[in-house]
């Protein structure tokens, strides 16, 4: 007999980055930088080629933080 299992998945960094609106940002522990930066430059860039993100380092209560901000989308080029 087949069993139906309700799997509840937690959001991933890709989810968080994808969900950012223009001008919105979030912070993560700075040690997540090696995970988050490649995601932005590969997976997110492939999924949303016009989106632009900025990462910066800031001081938090309990150590350094990585702030990820979504910038204005790239303007479409009018070369044609």
């Amino acid at each position, binding site marked *: 007999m087949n069993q139906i299992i309700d799997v509840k998945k937690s*959001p991933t960094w890709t*989810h*968080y980055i994808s*969900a*950012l609106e223009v001008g*919105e940002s*979030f912070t993560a522990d700075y040690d997540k930088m090696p995970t988050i930066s490649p995601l932005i430059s590969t997976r997110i860039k492939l999924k949303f080629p016009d989106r632009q993100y900025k990462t910066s380092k800031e001081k938090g209560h309990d*150590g350094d933080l990585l702030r990820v901000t979504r910038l204005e989308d790239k303007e479409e080029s009018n070369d044609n």
Partner: protein
Amino acid sequence: MTLPNLIPGLVDKSVEFFGHNMEVYCIHDGRTIEYAAFPMWMREIIMQHMETNPHLVAAVRREKVDFSDFVKKYIYLVFGRIDGIPDIALDGSTNHEFFAFSKREIDILRLVHLTDKEIAERLFISRETVLSHWQNMRRSTGLNNKIQLAISASKRGII
């Protein structure tokens, strides 16, 4: 090399509460103090915290953790995690780390990557209800960004 932060209260007069085996303790001035021996000034700060955070008092009441003493239960749930930030800082200010999310709010946090309309469809509720849940979560945590809310919940193992 970055050195890890010391547990607050270990070498200073700040206070770090922690729970162990359903008992509540604090670290203060290099000593571990049992709940029964908490000084009056410490209890007064906690009472003041309860007065100014009625939403946390209500959330603690809802939690099914069996404590005969409500103040003890409040400290256990609201402050009882050792996190490197003093629960009572040297200036007497408090930092709590308890986010009281309901089951439905947790369902919504797990779907943070979807639009509010998609979350509503997925959970068979209205978009207005989703918006109201986000608003309640923002108010109770002081975090004004839904992604930050989900990240905080994830860091605490809630989602």
